[in-house]
């Protein structure tokens, strides 16, 4: 069911004042009396300007076809207007009904009341539509067309006025029978115009001076127009684009009308940035007023391409600089190597060589013939090496080694070199270069020769060392045998001496015994003369006995037949015992002999008999070599070193420093001469020293010639077992 409401339209009256705006429209009608399209457009624009109708469509009857077609629109897509064609044969059709009606008809939006299908589809789009029939002054005459407005717009006196005058004009033009013709012509021209501007890929816009859109081609519409049903994002993008464009346009008009400007817009499809170059020009139209035609050229891709090119160029420059630096570094490396380096290409021609290589392979053209020959010879040898490498199958990274006999071009000196060549392959595996390093082998050869000499020398040395070692071993063995023999001999000697001393004693026993008996008068009184002679026998016999006893002592010590008899005893007690034993001698000497015993305990663990023998010997010596003064025997114990000492100090003749050591040797006295003053065997100190060593101690001497001597026996408190 149609939802049609009728609103009474205020009729235009004669009393309506003719305003300047109305007058201008009427003038236009007069001037363009044949131009239906122009009049329609002027009328709709007048409505927009003076009646506030932002969107309107004008439809006209084509009598020949009985259809209602769009002849003009304002604020609506022009395509929709031009494509609109509606049959009016059906009297039940709402548009036909509206056409026949005297009053305006309102079509409610189908969507708003839920009815489907009966609301006419007009170029005005969805929504409530008011259809006002356009007819002339004659009553009952058929309407020449329909004016479609938004129903929301109230029918003002201005609208009413226009409907009246425009209806008369329509009828007038129609009465001249030119409507159809005009309409067709208009449609063709418009179609052509829109085809042309739509075929332009750049957006083209015609706007008024305030930036309001008048005409836009399809491309421009995509950017600047959005259907009501379009989504929020698209609508917003379009709104933004309009704002941006208006701003740009106003600047263009004010600042530089003909200059191209860049304009950044938003693609309503995907929200991406689009960069345009806007070229605007102002057009003056007496009817339309001042308009601005803007052509937008999409330079987004161009800009992107430019930027890309710029970026690539920068990259290229950086890469080029890197390559140059790399090459410089490489050259530096190559030049700093002392060995000749040659780079050849895949054809075997030399590409690069460092200075040492230059010396071998190049010569100035004016060089001596010998030099040139040398260079040629070198080149020939090197070429044959390289060609061998180039012909041979080898993979990347393979190193080929070879020896080349080169000559020094200047001196003619042969230079044996080791050539080490490596192939340089491109990424595709093609051979691009061969790098060869020539290593002078002279030094290596010289080193090898020296090494060989050194080895020979070392071998010889080793042989000598071996033979010396062998000899040493032989000597050692010999010495060992000699040592054994010596030991045996020593043992035999000791045994011999022991036996000898026994054999000596037996007769000596008889000699001394009988002499004593004779002196005692066992065989009767002897004369003083005989007695003196007997005393000589006695004293010499006793001396001989002493010698024999002392030899026996030494022999026993050396033969190890003098075992230690360790016991505990007081050293302090030993001293008076020794003095008592030698009392007869002391008494005869008229010297003052004293002892200075230790205040501390002098308990020792040692061989008492041997200590006593040493002290007896030292005191005997002191008595023998002291003519006046005193002798003192001092006893001391050192707890720190755990040693005890007995010092026998006399005021005798003393011993000079050079004799301090040798008086301890066997059969030694300071005076060794046969006419010596002092008796004794010269074995006493030798025995004492041996005994002291056996006790783990030592005898030391401090003496000044003419002042006296001090012999000190030092032994450990605990004798080594």
């Amino acid at each position, binding site marked *: 069911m149609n939802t049609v409401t009728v609103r009474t339209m205020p009729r235009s009256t004669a009393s309506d004042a003719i305003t300047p705006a109305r007058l201008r429209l009427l003038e236009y009608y007069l001037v363009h009396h044949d131009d239906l399209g122009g009049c329609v457009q002027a009328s709709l624009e007048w409505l927009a300007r003076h009646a506030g109708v932002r969107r309107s469509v004008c439809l006209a009857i084509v009598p020949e076809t009985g259809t209602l077609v769009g002849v003009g629109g304002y604020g609506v897509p022009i395509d929709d207007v031009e494509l609109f064609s509606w049959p009016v044969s059906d009297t039940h059709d709402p548009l036909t009904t509206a056409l026949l009606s005297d009053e305006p008809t309102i079509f409610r939006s189908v969507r708003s009341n839920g009815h489907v299908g009966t609301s006419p589809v007009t170029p005005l789009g969805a929504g409530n539509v008011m259809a006002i029939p356009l007819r002339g002054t004659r009553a009952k005459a058929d309407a020449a067309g329909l004016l479609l407005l938004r129903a929301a717009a109230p029918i003002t006196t201005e609208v009413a006025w226009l409907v009246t005058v425009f209806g008369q004009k329509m009828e007038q033009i129609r009465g001249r029978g030119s409507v159809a013709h005009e309409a067709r012509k208009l449609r063709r021209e418009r179609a052509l115009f829109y085809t042309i501007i739509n075929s332009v890929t750049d957006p083209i816009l015609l706007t008024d001076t305030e930036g309001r859109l008048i005409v836009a081609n399809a491309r421009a519409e995509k950017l600047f127009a959005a259907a009501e049903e379009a989504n929020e994002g698209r609508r917003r993008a379009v709104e933004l684009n309009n704002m941006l464009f208006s701003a740009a346009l106003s600047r263009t008009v004010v600042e530089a009308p003909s200059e191209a400007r860049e304009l950044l817009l938003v693609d309503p499809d995907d929200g991406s940035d689009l960069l345009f170059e806007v070229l605007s020009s102002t057009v003056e139209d007496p009817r339309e007023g001042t308009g601005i035609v803007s052509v937008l050229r999409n330079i987004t891709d161009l800009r992107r391409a430019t930027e890309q090119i710029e970026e690539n160029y920068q990259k290229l420059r950086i890469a080029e600089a890197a390559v140059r630096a790399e090459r410089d570094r490489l050259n530096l490396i190559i030049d700093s190597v002392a060995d000749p380096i040659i780079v050849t290409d895949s054809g075997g021609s030399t590409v690069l060589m460092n200075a040492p290589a230059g010396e071998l392979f190049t010569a100035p053209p004016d060089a001596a013939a010998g030099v040139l020959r040398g260079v040629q010879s070198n080149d020939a040898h090197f070429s044959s090496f390289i060609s061998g490498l180039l012909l041979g199958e080898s993979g990347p990274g393979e190193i080929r080694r070879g020896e080349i006999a080169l000559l020094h071009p200047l001196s003619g000196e042969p230079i044996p070199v080791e050539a080490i060549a490596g192939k340089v392959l491109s990424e595709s595996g093609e051979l691009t270069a061969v790098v060869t390093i020539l290593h002078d082998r002279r030094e290596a050869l010289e080193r090898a020769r020296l090494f060989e000499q050194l080895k020979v020398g070392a071998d010889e040395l080793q042989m000598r060392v071996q033979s010396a070692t062998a000899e040493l071993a032989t000597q050692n063995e010999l010495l060992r045998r000699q040592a054994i023999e010596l030991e045996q001999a020593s043992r035999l000697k000791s045994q011999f001496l022991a036996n000898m001393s026994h054999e000596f004693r*037996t007769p*000596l026993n*008889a000699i*001394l*015994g009988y002499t*004593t*008996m004779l002196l005692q008068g*066992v065989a009767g009184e002897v004369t003083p003369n005989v007695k003196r002679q007997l005393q000589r026998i006695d004293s010499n016999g006793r001396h001989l006995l002493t010698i024999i*006893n002392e030899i026996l002592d030494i022999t026993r010590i050396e033969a190890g*037949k003098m075992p230690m008899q360790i016991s505990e005893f007081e050293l302090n007690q030993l001293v008076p015992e020794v003095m008592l034993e030698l009392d007869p001698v002391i008494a005869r000497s008229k010297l003052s002999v004293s002892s200075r015993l230790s205040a501390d305990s002098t308990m020792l663990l040692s061989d008492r008999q041997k200590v006593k023998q040493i002290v007896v010997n030292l005191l005997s010596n002191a008595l023998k070599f002291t003519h006046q003064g005193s002798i003192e025997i001092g006893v001391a114990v050192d707890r720190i070193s755990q040693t005890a000492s007995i010092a026998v100090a006399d005021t005798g003749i003393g011993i000079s420093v050079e004799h301090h050591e040798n008086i301890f040797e066997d059969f030694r006295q300071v005076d060794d001469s046969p006419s010596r003053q002092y008796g004794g065997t010269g074995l006493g100190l030798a025995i004492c020293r041996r005994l002291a060593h056996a006790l783990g101690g030592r005898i030391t001497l401090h003496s000044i010639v003419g002042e006296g001597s001090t012999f000190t026996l030092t032994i450990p408190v605990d004798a080594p077992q």
Partner: protein
Amino acid sequence: MTEQNAPLILVVDDYQDAREMYAEYLQFSGFRVAEARNGNEAVEQAFALLPDLILMDLSLPGKDGWEATKELKADTRTRHIPIVALTGHALAGASDGAKKAGCDSFVTKPCLPDDLVVEVRRMLNAVK
């Protein structure tokens, strides 16, 4: 001049000069003296005479002084007789061997006659 009740000393030594020298000096010193030249004679004389003291040289031909001493010391008739050993071997161990054999005293040769008499008197006094 030797008294009948003077102590009888048996001097045993194979070396005649030494034996006679000691004997002569002992007699000079007032002792009665008997002599023996070897171990066998020494044992025989000792059993026969039962001397008051025996001077025994240890190194004797045939039966030596050690054996003779052992024999005498093993017999009850002669066990009490003091034996003074005489030796020319001054090597250590000689005196130990003599003591082991049963000698009561030990004197090293050369021993002057008067020294020997001192030792003999000392031993005799010790027995008393």
